[in-house]
């Protein structure tokens, strides 16, 4: 196994971590839609101690892509220019909202920032879905790895369905997380009902998306991908069943596994490509033509092997520290 493959795996790991951890943060943000003020405060408090650390998984996934596959970083980020602009606006609003919402006690002030959190959670969830599907579906990338399409090329039905699927999946995941973290039993039951609905909707969106994707991409070409896709469907069903039975832990683990399997399936379908060119297969960016030198890859491998486990340890410790369920009395902190 060469360093390029190792880095493809590491990027997969980082994106898996990102989608699992930010997935429920985005989901919790979206679950705030239409909830009364005191419940929104509890939701925010549930992810308050961890959302910032979770977001770093995205930044690290981006930074690692830059270091290991600079051409992917260059092509992907310039291709998705306007989409990333929207995502950045959303992430800016969301990040500032978490900090400022509790600083003043006027209803309008809190409502405004909570809207920022909802918007700032929905938009990235949607756009990551759109982006990921486009990587596999193929984009007009020329022989110099330059994107020669426009913004509308990104908004094809297949990608949009992928985006909606991501939104629903993350909302499902977020509802499961909240069911684990909220102390109010009545609220938890309500969340679990929602989780069941969201899980079923996710499955429905999944089937639609998979149908279009099977026609438009080569996602079903590898057995491994099909297996992981199957596992992710099973995990979503198990999550629904868990939520229906009132087993919050089972439901959350299931949606976590669903996201993990889906991410692995997706990267497995891509391998060894990272960005598919719709002009010619020769123009696709892959783990060799887009990579850094072995020297840099080796150096970054050492760094990743040392630091990723350390990060996992102290982030796990954070979750342990804040393992208690959030009560309405907890929210005065923020």
């Amino acid at each position, binding site marked *: 196994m060469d360093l390029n493959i190792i880095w493809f795996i590491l990027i997969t790991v980082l994106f898996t971590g990102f989608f699992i951890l930010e997935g429920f943060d985005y989901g919790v943000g979206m679950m705030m839609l239409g909830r009364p003020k005191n419940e929104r405060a509890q939701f925010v408090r549930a992810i308050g101690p961890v959302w910032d650390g979770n977001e770093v998984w995205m930044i690290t996934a981006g930074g690692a892509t830059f270091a290991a596959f600079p051409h992917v970083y260059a092509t992907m980020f310039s291709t998705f*220019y306007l989409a990333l602009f929207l995502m*950045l606006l959303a992430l800016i609003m969301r990040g500032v909202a978490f900090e400022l919402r509790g600083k003043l006690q006027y209803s309008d002030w809190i409502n405004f920032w909570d809207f920022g959190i909802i918007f700032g959670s929905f938009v990235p969830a949607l756009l990551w879905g759109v982006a990921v599907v486009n990587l596999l579906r193929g984009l007009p990338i020329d022989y110099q790895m330059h994107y020669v399409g426009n913004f509308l090329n990104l908004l094809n039905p297949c990608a949009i369905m992928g985006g909606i699927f991501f939104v629903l999946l993350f909302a499902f995941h977020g509802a499961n997380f909240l069911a684990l973290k909220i102390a109010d039993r009545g609220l938890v039951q309500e969340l679990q009902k929602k989780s069941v609905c969201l899980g079923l909707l996710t499955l429905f969106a999944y089937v639609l998306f998979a149908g279009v994707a099977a026609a438009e991409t080569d996602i079903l070409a590898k057995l491994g991908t099909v297996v992981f896709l199957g596992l992710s469907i099973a995990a979503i069903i198990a999550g629904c069943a868990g939520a229906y039975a009132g087993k919050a832990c089972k439901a959350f683990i299931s949606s976590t596994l669903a996201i993990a399997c889906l991410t692995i399936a997706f990267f497995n379908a891509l391998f060894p490509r990272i960005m598919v060119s719709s002009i010619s297969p020769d123009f696709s960016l892959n783990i060799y033509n887009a990579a850094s030198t072995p020297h840099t890859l080796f150096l970054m491998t050492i*760094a990743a092997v040392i630091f990723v486990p350390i990060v996992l340890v102290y982030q796990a410790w954070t979750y342990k520290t804040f393992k208690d369920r959030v009560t309405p009395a907890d929210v005065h902190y923020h």
Partner: protein
Amino acid sequence: MDALILSRLQFAITTIYHFLFVPVTLGLSIFVALLETWYINSGSYEERVKLKKLVKFFGTIFLINFAMGVVTGIVQEFHFGMNWSEYARFMGDIFGAPLALEALTAFFIESTFIGLWIFGWDKLSEKMHCLCIWIVAFGSNLSAFWILVANSFMQHPVGYAIENGRAVMTDFIELVTNPYVFGEYSHTFFAGITTGGFLVIVVSAWKIATDDESREMFVRTLRRAVLYTMLGTLGVMGSGHMHAQYLAEANPMKLASFEALWETEDPAPFAVVADINQEERRNDSEILIPKMFTFMVHNSFSGEVKGINDLQKEAVEKYGSGYYIPNDVRGMFWSFRAMVGTGGLLLFIVFVTGCLAFFKRDEIRDYRCCLKLMPLLLPLPFIANSAGWYIAEAGRQPWIVVGLQKTAVAVSPNLSAGEVWITLIGFTAIYLFLAVLAVFAAVMFIRKTKITSEE
């Protein structure tokens, strides 16, 4: 305006905006950590109540600022790929590594431990809680180190080779120990201390003048902040001076540009003010201090300092025909004076405030009207910081990586001017909007919060 100039403008706006918050994070994190260390080592119950409130008070200001810094930092990272894809291709082998290391070693600990710090008051032991803010401070300052390693390479490439038309890393240790890093990092670190410290001075002074119940505690923070800021200001001056001397060998074009020295001279004079004519490559008029520039560079009154015109000729010999002079010598010249001028003024103000805080402690209330005006001076360190980065980055032009890649070829080729207009306007609008709200929230918070011994 084309996509190139708009992308440059957008990057400049984002960087300057981002760097309004970064130095506060660097300096205030350490100050809050010191305050909390003071708190956990304090004695009487009453004292502890007040100190804990004080830690939370400055902690909250820190957090508002921190959030603004974090979100603009993400924009910064994304920009390298969004607007500067050809730069990312050319430099990725080198530039990606410190960026990824910044995320792995610094961002993770910063953002994880800040969460523990905010919500962990009742969950962690006192010592552990205090350790969290120290780790945040360490992480912030470590992240500054990594990004300055990356920036230093752009200013002064080392430890690389050119292979297949792109720069590749040959020696990581050389990259990290680039002497340019030392100058940039020490200057930035002390600028952070100064900015964070001065913010505490201003807030404390204002509270002393307007909030009688909390005055006692803020006199105490004022005294500590004065010493802290004084240390920062002296450090920033020393490191800046050393770095400028180093520039004489590492990047003489930048040095000559911010002093508007067009011809090589021995000894070279220092221009206090100059009417710069970039087109004809001379100063139309100037007020000079003879030999001074040479003295600043060589610590003696004799010695040559190279001028812009000779450096241009050297560059043409080295890189082929082209225009290698930073295209805004006038802006650099005045930015340098703005930076040094505000720095000097800052030192003076801190000194005077220190005299008040230490020698007029009991009568400090009599100076209320002066203290009340202190917030008007708050922009000073921010002006100095922005001017400093302006010189550093404008002085690198026309290069994006000095000697290796020009800014003009680094921009993403697929972007249209229209697209960049949309994002430029969008980012600028949201920056302004959020700055207003964040300042509003901070001011309201500072106004209403009292530091008393009541629970």
